[in-house]
């Protein structure tokens, strides 16, 4: 589904990604781990199409189609979803209105008419229940005054509504207590199927107990330096990242 081929990227002329290749197939869960500043979030942003990040070399394809020149919204229309590490607060736009607009804009891009209101309401209710989201929450301004846990839950709610092909969860576990973590992970697992894929970016192995990856990759200094199975995550938890550095030398 997703092919990243030898990607180099920079922000403000600083090189961050230095030759990343990754292949993700439908039905798979990939975890990307690594120390701070290794380039994990940059990788997420460059897949989602953030303009400040410049892809200087390489290609990203979704189902064989090169998306490197596409705008963020066009990538979303192709099924890419990024759950933000720091979701943006937008006063004056309610969660419900925001998600309605997003869904209908996606439908418009596909040449479909707006989703009928009754269908929309039903879907919102169903997905809100899945993530144990209070109805009152949906009429609040987007992310304004939300706790860390509420923000992340709201991200996964949007994912549930948009049903992306490829979901990238950027540090979705940060700021979550264990109960919230379980709810979020449970939501992701229920949305997971053989036709979609998930990339989980995290510092800690903890989340991976709940969202079990098929593959684990370690990024250091803008490169994937080691790939393995879930076992690798346990090793990292136990020994930190230094042993990989030593291995590399």
């Amino acid at each position, binding site marked *: 589904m997703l092919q990243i081929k030898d990607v180099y990227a920079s922000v403000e002329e600083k090189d961050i990604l230095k030759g990343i290749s990754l292949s993700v197939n439908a039905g798979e869960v990939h975890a990307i781990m690594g120390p701070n500043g290794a380039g994990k979030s940059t990788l997420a942003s460059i897949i*989602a*199409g*953030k*303009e*400040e990040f410049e892809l200087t070399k390489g290609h990203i394809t979704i189902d064989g189609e090169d998306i490197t020149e596409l*705008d*963020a*919204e066009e*990538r*979303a*229309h192709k099924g*890419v*979803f*990024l759950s*933000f590490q720091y*979701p*943006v607060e*937008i*006063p*004056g*736009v*309610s969660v419900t*209105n*925001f998600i309605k*607009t*997003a869904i209908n*804009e*996606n439908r418009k*891009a596909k040449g479909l008419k*707006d989703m009928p209101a009754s269908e929309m309401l039903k879907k919102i209710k169903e997905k809100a229940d899945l993530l144990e989201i209070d109805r009152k929450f949906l009429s609040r301004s987007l992310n304004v005054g939300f706790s860390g846990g509420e923000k992340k839950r709201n991200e996964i709610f*949007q994912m549930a509504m*948009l049903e992306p092909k490829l979901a990238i969860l950027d540090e979705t576990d940060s700021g979550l207590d264990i109960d919230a973590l379980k709810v979020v992970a449970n939501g992701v697992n229920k949305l997971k199927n053989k036709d979609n894929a998930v990339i989980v970016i995290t510092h800690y192995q903890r989340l991976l107990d709940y969202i079990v990856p098929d593959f684990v990759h370690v990024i250091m200094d803008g490169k994937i330096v080691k790939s393995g199975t879930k076992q690798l995550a346990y090793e990292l938890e136990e020994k930190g990242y230094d042993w990989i550095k030593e291995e590399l030398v």
Partner: protein
Amino acid sequence: MSLKEKLQSSYLAFEDHLQADSPLHDVRNKAMKSFETKGFPSKKEEAWKYTSLNALLNKEYSIFPKNDTAIEFKDVKKYFLNDIDTYKVVFIDGVYSSFLSQITHDVIDVCLMSSALNKSKYSSIIETYFNKAANSDSLTCLNTAFAKEGAYIRIAKHKEAQKPIEIINFATGTEAATMLQPRNLIIVEENAHVQIIERHQSLNDNEVLTNSVTEIFLEKRANVDYYKIQNDTQNASLIDSTFIQQQRESICSVHTFSFGGKLTRNNLNFKQLGEHCDSILNGVTMIEDKQHVDHNTLVHHIAENCESHQDYKGIFDDSATGVFNGKVYVEKQAQKLDAFQKNNNILISNKATINAKPQLEIFADDVKCSHGCTIGQLDQEALFYLRSRGIAKKEARALLMYAFANTVLEGVKIPELKGRINKLIANKIGVNLGFDL
């Protein structure tokens, strides 16, 4: 002949028709003298530092335009709030149109300034109220000298206007340049309530300069919601001066939506004369090209235990320029008051300009006064967030602009009007977002 000279000679001709023994005669003469002495305001005056009238004053305006142009309702229907029933006071080139209007004398008076000024049964009201709230700046004086038509509204004690009142001034642009000077007088008596929508609308691209003055008097516990919709054509300019006097426990809100026109200057003056008054001043300005909108507000706190709230949002694109000059003046005896002023601006283009000047003059020592002013751009991180959810750039920008203006929009208490304003904004940004905030 300069515009000032033309106005002077027009005044002499106009004055000939007036009854010399009318008490108004003196008021007009005095006002005209004051205008003659002061002349049009220039940028040398502090209050006009950022707004120049020069480009407007060199046009050959018709001071008393011909009014033989018929308007068909279907051609102007879109300017009315046509999905609900309203009272309507409509003028075409400064002359009352009975055909387009729907006035009443049943319990409340929604009628004409010309009647109020000329009929003897109104003379004591005119003597009590006319020109009593207005100040003596030169343009207001000019309007007073020429005042002959506009809306006259009086809501009697304990009465409520059952329908909103629309005051619409159409300019047909039959002549190359037209000057209009509507004058409105609104009296809302004790515990009475009214909602008013005011609009100035040109029907073609000829030059129009409107110098409008409105006086609003709120007696004890009166309640007024006033909406100004300014979305005029590219050569239409408006100088709008509104003077409001509030007696105790009255509440007055004025919402100004400035979306178009060549030059718009809003002078909005509140005077709180009794305790426990609340004054609300809201505004959304959204302009582009070379449009200019200047908000000049003054809240004059004279009594104790009062409140005032100002919330002005501005979005400026292309080479548009904006001014916010907001003054809160607190007299020594106006203790225990809560005055709040907020002015937030977004500059969309590099060439857009905003001059913001909040001023607080406080002579009381036990008050809560605050003000905040920001100037920025659309939040790029928020824009990416919306786009990453599949919302196209243009729509994402529109959404952020709506969200920015939301605190003001949600203050609109007539749902149909709110819907209309939402649509005006959507048209302006060029999106088809059925976005209901």
